[in-house]
């Protein structure tokens, strides 16, 4: 049973309250709604980078520890140590930036929370119950427990941490997808009441979004790991560990790059079915001419007031082919939607193209590396290695661009077709929001800027065996910390240089 209800319930309830709220004085011409959105967008954009890396690295660590335990080859152990340090920094930043998100739903979007908390609350609670504690409980053992537990139990802890990251992604994407394609609920007394939880969780866009995001996390991590390996090789730091991580990463890019293109295509078709206005905005497609196919606009500048896409460079028929998989199919144009129901095409047109462009470059990197491998040039071709270094952040940029596309493309709705974003925002003044935004910007740039620079510093040290704890210490106990061990080695290198 699919219950889909139009937006009047939430609208009327909130407008009554909205009229009583105080008169606003915009800050820098930005209204409270815009500032609340900027604040949320800023914090969530910073946040998503870390879980994405954590999801990918946690699974990578499972593979590395499995290979090490299975084959007993030391290089996998060295790589485990190396990447577990970077994982620790990334994970911590994901935890603290995620804590902010759990509270921001209430601080910034109190009407949304009061209205839809009956659906989003339990999903979030399940995420914490099934995932966060699993990660937190086993992370300590995975990172610090080498000397305290046996190898099997340690491996189990690593698997639990990785499983936690995936379970977490599942619940949060179920919640987000429900906001995109809501079903399985009724509106009673001006609030959402869940009717069928399976319908709520397995809403139409959920499987596509989940697959797209998890694969994106794997891809972004593979690109990051690959770029680290390539960077070391370019600096003639040619060790087995460096080669191994580049090789593993390039296999991964080759495998999941094209897979992601397929998933993305299916996700797009799903969006066309359930959120046609978003697709029209992404394509900068304003109206159909009867009987004519839809061109694919490669580049252009959608103009929301003039209702046209300026400077359009387009290929005939290709829009139809990509979106309907037929030669002459049509998709709804933006003009088919009331102007107050249209997402901002100028933004999503470009964010989408950045994502797709980077995605195609990733596929190219995978193919090129595969070809170089066949010709035994993978570790030698400097052009390829440079390209791999450049593509290091591409996965993360593509993830951000993709989220901008899907979230801004959902506007003006917070729950698609049910509640408008303007009815969801708390009654804070623009002054209050701009002060807190300033605090967030300062803290985030200082803290996460430092964190990212530490991650890069750690990467630059390289997975050298001499940096990790000695082999005989494993499972009996590194006397020093992982980090301080690295510090010592650093100090030693510095002394040698001097």
């Amino acid at each position, binding site marked *: 049973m699919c219950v889909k209800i139009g937006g009047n319930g939430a609208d009327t309830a909130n407008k009554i309250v909205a009229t009583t709220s105080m008169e606003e004085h915009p800050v820098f011409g930005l209204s409270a709604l815009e500032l609340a959105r900027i604040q949320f967008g800023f914090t969530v954009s910073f946040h998503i980078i870390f879980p994405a890396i954590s999801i990918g690295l946690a699974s990578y660590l499972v593979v590395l520890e499995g290979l090490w335990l299975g084959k007993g080859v030391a290089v996998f152990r060295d790589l485990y140590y190396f990447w577990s340090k970077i994982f620790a920094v990334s994970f911590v930043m994901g*935890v603290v930036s995620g804590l902010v998100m759990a509270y921001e739903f209430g*601080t910034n979007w109190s*009407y949304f929370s009061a209205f839809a*908390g009956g659906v989003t*609350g*339990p999903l*979030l609670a399940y995420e914490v119950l099934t995932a966060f504690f699993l990660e937190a409980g086993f992370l300590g053992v995975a990172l610090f427990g080498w000397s305290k537990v046996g190898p099997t139990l340690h491996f189990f802890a690593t698997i639990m941490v990785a499983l936690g990251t995936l379970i977490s992604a599942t619940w949060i994407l179920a919640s987000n997808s429900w906001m995109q394609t809501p079903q399985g609920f009724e509106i009673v007394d001006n609030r959402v009441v869940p009717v069928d939880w399976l319908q709520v969780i397995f809403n139409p866009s959920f499987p596509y979004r989940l697959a797209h995001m998890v694969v994106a996390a794997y891809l972004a991590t593979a690109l990051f790991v690959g770029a680290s390996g390539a960077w070391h090789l370019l600096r003639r730091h040619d060790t087995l560990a460096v080669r191994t991580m580049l090789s593993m990463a390039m296999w991964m890019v080759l495998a999941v790059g094209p897979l992601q293109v397929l998933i993305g295509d299916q996700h797009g078709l799903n969006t066309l079915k359930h959120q046609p206005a978003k697709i029209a905005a992404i394509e900068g497609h304003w109206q159909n001419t009867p009987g004519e196919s839809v061109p694919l606009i490669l580049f252009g500048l959608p103009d929301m007031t003039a209702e046209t896409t300026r400077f359009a460079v387009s290929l005939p028929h290709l829009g139809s082919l990509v979106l309907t998989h037929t030669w002459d199919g049509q998709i709804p144009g933006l003009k088919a939607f009331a102007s107050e129901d249209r997402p901002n095409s100028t933004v999503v047109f470009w964010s989408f193209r950045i994502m797709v462009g980077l995605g195609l470059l990733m596929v190219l990197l995978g193919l090129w590396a595969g070809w170089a491998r066949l010709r035994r040039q993978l570790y030698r071709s400097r052009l390829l290695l440079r390209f791999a270094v450049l593509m290091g952040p591409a996965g993360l940029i593509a993830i951000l661009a993709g989220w901008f596309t899907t979230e801004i493309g959902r506007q003006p709705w917070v729950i698609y077709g049910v509640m408008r974003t303007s009815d969801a925002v708390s009654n*804070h003044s623009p002054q209050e929001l701009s002060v807190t935004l300033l605090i967030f910007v300062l803290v985030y740039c200082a803290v996460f800027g430092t964190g990212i620079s*530490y991650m890069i510093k750690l990467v630059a040290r390289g997975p050298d065996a001499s940096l990790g704890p000695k082999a005989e210490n494993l499972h009996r106990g590194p006397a020093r910390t992982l980090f301080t061990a690295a510090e010592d080695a650093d100090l030693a290198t510095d002394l040698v240089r001097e």
Partner: protein
Amino acid sequence: MMGVDLPVLWALIISFCLMMYVVLDGFDLGIGILLPFVRSIDDRDTIVNTVAPVWDGNETWLVLGGASLLAAFPLAYAVLLSALYIPLVFMLAGLIWRGVAFEFRFVAGAHRAFWDKAFAGGSYVATIAQGVSLGAFINGFNITGPSYQGGALDWLTPFSLFTGIALLAAYALLGSTWLILKTEGGLQKRMIALTRPITLTVLIGIGMVSVWTPLIHSEIAARWFSFPNLFFLAPVPLLVLGAVWAMLRVLNRAANAAPFWLALLLLFLGYSGLAISLWPNIIPPNISIWEAAAPPQSMGFALVGALFIIPFILGYTSWSYFVFRGKVKAGEGYH
């Protein structure tokens, strides 16, 4: 779920989560509060190492508290969080600073002194912000319909500032007694010496709040000072006095685990006192848990998960504490 009072069950679960948070993150915020009183770098490393493997799980109880509140009492989540917007932003900023400082101080090298300050500073800011939020919560909120209608600075009162400072003392007590449990030698002696004045400060804090609250809220005064309530509730303040007396006594002998358990008892009593004062309101002064409750379908669905999974969480959290049990020695890092 017939016959089960879901809002009451959820109120108990959320109280339990917050209690777990206060206890667990309380001692690791507490060690941040105490860090400026310890000069030696080795001692500081030991102190941080006592919580390094477990702090992340401790903070997760705060996330569970927030998520459960959204799931079970969305109205309370919406009103409380928007009313406490500014102190909560400070709390989150503080928790971010100290959370990353855990990791960064080990990679930082020359910047270690800076991250120690960030760790301590973040702990102070987060604790005061939590205490201020608690005070504002006791004071109550001005709401109409589903919306907070008060001003942006309503949370700021002499009472809330006082609870902010009082919570510093409470967390410092948890931190110092935790360190008595986890360390030895000179550091442990120093913590025993610090614990005495901290315990008395906590007693004064509890006493002030106990007098101040009924003075400004007549309904809370009525609850405590009417018959037969007075008779049933009298054990709470008496136990507080007993716990303080026991604490001062065990500190004079070779103290180890006892002070920590007594500190937990004190915190638990203070927490119970607040619960008695405020029950059954979830948005003081007058929105009850039944008025703020989510639809039964939401509460029931989430309840299944909570009842089934929380025991497992407690299980593997205890296991993790068990793995890292015993004294942390100087120079021995888990990191």
